[in-house]
């Protein structure tokens, strides 16, 4: 496990100032009331095409969660495999910026980030037409600038927007949605404090988090990530609620991608000339 040797840590006796903060009061049930209901996703802001060097890029904001994604490719693969001859490879890199959480993280990818990268890869792979890019690899780099809950789901959505913006052929875009099951209430698209919950609730029944990645037009689930302890029927309901949440996000994604296409180039007027049948030209 690589260790960060370049930063000077304080003297041996120093402790993190977070230990001295007064303990948070239990998150009030009213934290959502008046702003949004339990089943509503946060209003999302999305833009494509901001990173000029990358093939495709996208930026997404949902509440305070901010995620940016860039796509490079198709590029030549360095290490080749038998499977690479027929179809391309998708490489995903999920990173949390050190300033994204309240506790400072490291620039080096931790084991949790590697896990999330693998889940992101599994969710995106069914959506991309990899057989059209043999012997090549497409790189997807996701960076979370601020972590305010449901980062995996929003990363999936952001990565699909970047792939669409980069002109990578896809069967369908992939949308993600997270749900937090808290006893009998379920909160869709939880914020960071809602996702962690308080330590008192941790011992109750039906506590968990579910993330679903969905291909909306084909109605296929490409990724399912569940954490915690939930009953079977609760889990099934949670997955269905997440799928509904995903469908709600689709118009935002559509608007962001089409806006970027329009911005990159006006509609090809010259094609109207070649639309005519040959006899007209002579």
């Amino acid at each position, binding site marked *: 496990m690589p260790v960060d040797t370049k930063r000077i840590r304080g003297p041996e006796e120093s402790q993190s100032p977070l230990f001295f903060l007064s303990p948070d009061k239990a998150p009030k049930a009213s934290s959502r009331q008046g702003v949004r209901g339990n089943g509503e996703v946060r209003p999302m802001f999305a833009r494509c095409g901001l990173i000029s060097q990358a093939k495709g890029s996208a930026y997404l904001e949902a509440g305070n969660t901010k995620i940016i994604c860039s796509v490079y490719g198709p590029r030549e693969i360095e290490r080749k495999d038998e499977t690479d001859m027929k179809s391309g490879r998708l490489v995903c890199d999920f990173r949390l910026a050190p300033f994204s959480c309240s506790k400072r993280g490291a620039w080096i990818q931790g084991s949790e980030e590697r896990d999330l990268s693998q889940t992101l890869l599994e969710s995106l792979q069914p959506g991309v*037409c990899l057989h059209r890019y043999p012997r090549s690899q497409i790189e997807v780099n996701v960076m979370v600038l601020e972590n305010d809950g449901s980062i995996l789901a929003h990363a999936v959505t952001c990565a699909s927007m970047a792939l*669409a913006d980069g002109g990578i052929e896809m069967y369908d875009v992939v949308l993600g949605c997270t749900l937090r099951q808290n006893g009998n209430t379920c909160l869709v698209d939880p914020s960071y404090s809602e996702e962690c919950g308080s330590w008192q609730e941790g011992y109750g029944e039906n506590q968990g988090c579910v993330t679903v990645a969905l291909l909306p037009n084909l109605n296929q689930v490409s990724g399912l990530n569940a954490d915690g302890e939930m009953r079977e029927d609760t889990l099934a309901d949670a997955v269905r609620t997440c799928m509904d949440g995903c469908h709600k996000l689709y118009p935002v994604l559509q608007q962001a991608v089409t806006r970027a296409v329009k911005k990159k180039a006006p509609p090809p007027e010259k094609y109207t000339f070649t639309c005519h049948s040959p006899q007209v030209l002579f």
Partner: protein
Amino acid sequence: MSPMKLCVPGERLCSTEDCIPGNGTYLRHGSIFASLAGYVLRKNEGEELPVISVVRETEAQLLPDVGAIVTCKVTSINPRFAKVHILYVGSTPLKDRFRGTIRREDVRATEKDKVETYKSFRPGDIVLAKVISLGDVQSNYLLTTAENELGVVVAHSEAGAQMVPISWCEMQCPRTHAKEFRKVARVQPEYLQA
């Protein structure tokens, strides 16, 4: 002209009874879906059904395909083969370089065993070649120059000046008038400036 329709990947465009799928689309369950984000274009090709395709203004990233003419730059030579970087596929520049190999027996069509790579290519030459294979696990793209129109297009002499082709196997430096051996491409007359 009515504004062209935009689409995102996965949008259902029409059914197979109305159109034939073109670039940027795929077929599923009797319907045509878009696979790219761009403008939807319907073209009448002269057959019964129009061809529906999705276009993006930015040129689609072409991958070197079997049979494509590519422009490459020689990076290193070896008695058995020459290694090149593929720069252009047809007339489209590639954003990332792909690597290719021209084997000794693929340099010429005649007298394949008498070929000397040192007399056919040098590092830094720009070569027109054709892709014969995507290669297997270990190798890169396999290219050939065994045609009259394929071979060295631009080469610099040892003195540093750009050489002028004299015959299919020789080029001359305009400064020192020294002749050097290359496998020269016979460029089509329409591409030469009068």
